[in-house]
């Protein structure tokens, strides 16, 4: 019997590990180690200026439970996410269906709606901050049609709406393209058969299109929900969390606590909370895929 160490299967194993090594090392260094550190920091009181780093156990988590401002931040986050997901997905689907027609100019409009996706986020937001001023471009347009526009970024209700719309217009093109690709993958013969059976356009949409593109709906909703929980630059540029605390979403609150108020330990605790929320939502959506998503096989 041969006792050669490098048997074929060992060689294959090594090759396999080498193939995944770059990704694995990257993940460990830039995902798992920072995650571990954030959790470690959340157990400490870290005063940067005084240069103290004291173990406090669960105190930061207790503070989290007692923090009256956290509820406001969670409510603001909920509003933002719900508004963004509903508006983004429905608009993206509507645009995709409209631009899936074989008509002149669809390529032009696809480009128009997609182009904000490739614009720098901060530049995009800064331009919108000018447009949304009380004497800015949006209200100037409204004035032309005789409407006295609100002070968008200063009203408690309109500020959140403005942030959501700015974000939707920025990113709706990405979901639109994903939906377009999915729509084009729906076999045409299904529609032909449905037409022969006398199904209306609405019925065809609900009974053929939606089930056939449901994997894409799931994917886009996960991406959009997770992305909405990470909103930061838009808030920092447009409202800085105001007016009041109406647009202080969780990530912005985390930033304030850690980097502005120098409560790095508590900031890390908020990060752990954010991580748990994102993980939970993703798991829920993933679990529900069996119920929602239609698989051909």
């Amino acid at each position, binding site marked *: 019997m041969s006792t050669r160490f490098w048997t074929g299967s060992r060689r294959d194993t090594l090759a396999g*590990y080498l193939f995944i090594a770059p990704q*694995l090392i990257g993940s*460990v*260094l830039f995902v*798992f*180690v920072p995650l*571990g*550190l954030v959790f*470690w920091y959340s157990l400490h009181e*870290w*005063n*940067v*200026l*005084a*240069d*103290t*780093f004291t173990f406090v156990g669960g105190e930061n988590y207790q503070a989290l439970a007692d923090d009256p401002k956290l509820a406001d931040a969670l409510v603001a986050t909920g509003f933002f996410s719900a508004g963004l997901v509903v508006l983004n997905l429905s608009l993206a689907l509507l645009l995709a269906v409209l631009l899936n027609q074989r008509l002149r100019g669809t390529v032009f409009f696809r480009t128009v709606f997609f182009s904000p996706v490739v614009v720098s986020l901060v530049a995009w937001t800064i331009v919108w901050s000018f447009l*949304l*001023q*009380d*004497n800015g471009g949006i209200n100037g347009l409204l004035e032309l049609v005789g409407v006295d526009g609100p*002070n*968008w*970024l*200063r009203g408690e209700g309109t500020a959140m709406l403005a942030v959501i719309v700015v974000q939707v217009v920025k990113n709706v093109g990405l979901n639109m393209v994903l939906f377009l690709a999915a729509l084009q993958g729906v076999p045409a013969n299904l529609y032909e058969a449905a037409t022969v059976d006398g199904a209306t356009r609405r019925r065809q949409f609900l009974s053929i299109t939606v089930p056939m593109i449901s994997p894409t709906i799931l994917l886009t909703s996960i991406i959009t929900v997770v992305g909405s929980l990470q909103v930061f630059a838009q808030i920092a540029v447009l409202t*800085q*969390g*105001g*007016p*009041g*605390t109406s647009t*202080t979403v969780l990530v912005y609150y985390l930033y*304030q606590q850690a*980097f*502005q*108020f*120098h409560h*790095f330990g508590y900031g890390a605790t908020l990060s752990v909370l954010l991580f748990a929320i994102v993980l939970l939502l993703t798991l829920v959506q993933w679990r529900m895929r069996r119920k929602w998503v239609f698989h051909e096989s």
Partner: protein
Amino acid sequence: MKIRAILAAATAGVLSLGLAACGGEEEPSTGPVSLRMTVWSSNEAHLKLFNEIADAYQAKNPRVTEVKFDPIPFESYTTTLTTQIAGGNGPDLAWLLENSAPDFVGSGALLPLDDTLAKADGYNAADLSPAATKLWQAGGKLFAYPFSTSPFGVFVNIDQLKAAGQQTPAELIAANQWTWEKAVAVAAASATKSGKAGLVVRDFDYKGWDNLSTVWTGWGAQAWSADGKTCGFDQQPMVDAMTFLHKAIFTDKALPGPGTTADFFAGEAAMTVTQISRASLLKEAKFGWDLVPLPTGPKGQYAVIGQAGLGALKKGKNADVAADFLAFFTNPENSAKLAAYFPPPRTSLLTADTLAKTNPLLKPEQLQKVVIDGISGGVVKPSHTGQAEIAQAVRAALDPLWKPDADIKAVLGGVCSAINPLLAK
């Protein structure tokens, strides 16, 4: 096996980083030294002067091979600085804003300077104005040098006022009528005529509320008591001052409303309240302008100053060398040079003659009335330990005030409820 090795490596990484975060100071080195100083100015003339001073220092101290001035944008200055410190990458010296002074001075992040300054040749620390150094001291020790003590004044666009047929502030001062009532009336009339903004409290923008201390001090109001423990927002002087301001914004339209920006220096407003160091922005102004002291309030004349300090970070590898460079950077000779851009804390330099040499844009009368009188009698803008958190709470609680139908007293009471727990910390 491999997995265990990876986990071990990751754990070691976590531990070493964690330990680095709580690690102590390093031994002072004796080899070549390179210093880094964070500043918020990227003005070429400023940096040129700093580099000249640094070159002179290096010529005398060959051990110091480099002094690097590292500009950080003003808007995020303190946040960036503290993040650098948190990451173990803090500078050796740093400019500090007055609103972060209590945090930096009280935390022990800075090296006490008294001994170094006392040892420095011909430093004459007794020349520093006590009003200027007060904010930067704790327990009788000086933790930062107030390199810039810049009073607030009112810059005026004479052309816009004249076009609106209004008296200029200089005329009003001569007639002893330069009051807030009058200033607001003039601003409102000018705004109506020009269609531009009237009076802009610069950097306020319905967020930077501490800039409003340039107004409410005229009513004898203060954000909190001198000991920092009692909230002043719900007290009568503040209610009166804010009522006046609210009327000036929403009834008289003398100040641009929330969400409207106007830059005086671009000719978009008739008047602006800001620090005199902004005069340099008027070098190429295409309109006639003047600089006058703040108008008088119901409590009479007053002045407000903004400050910036320079400190050496204790945690730096070469903290002693950094402090020594600080002493050189701010000695009488270099202070005189710095006075070209930053109103100095040295009483010997605070004369209209000296300042006139370095501030050619300002007339001796303006220097005397706004700068010298301002520095000697000025109230520093509000600052408190944990300022950033308090500032954020005040901003959020003040937001409901910036509506035409606001219940001023109730809003100001709300500000105190919001910050009382923070003031008590």
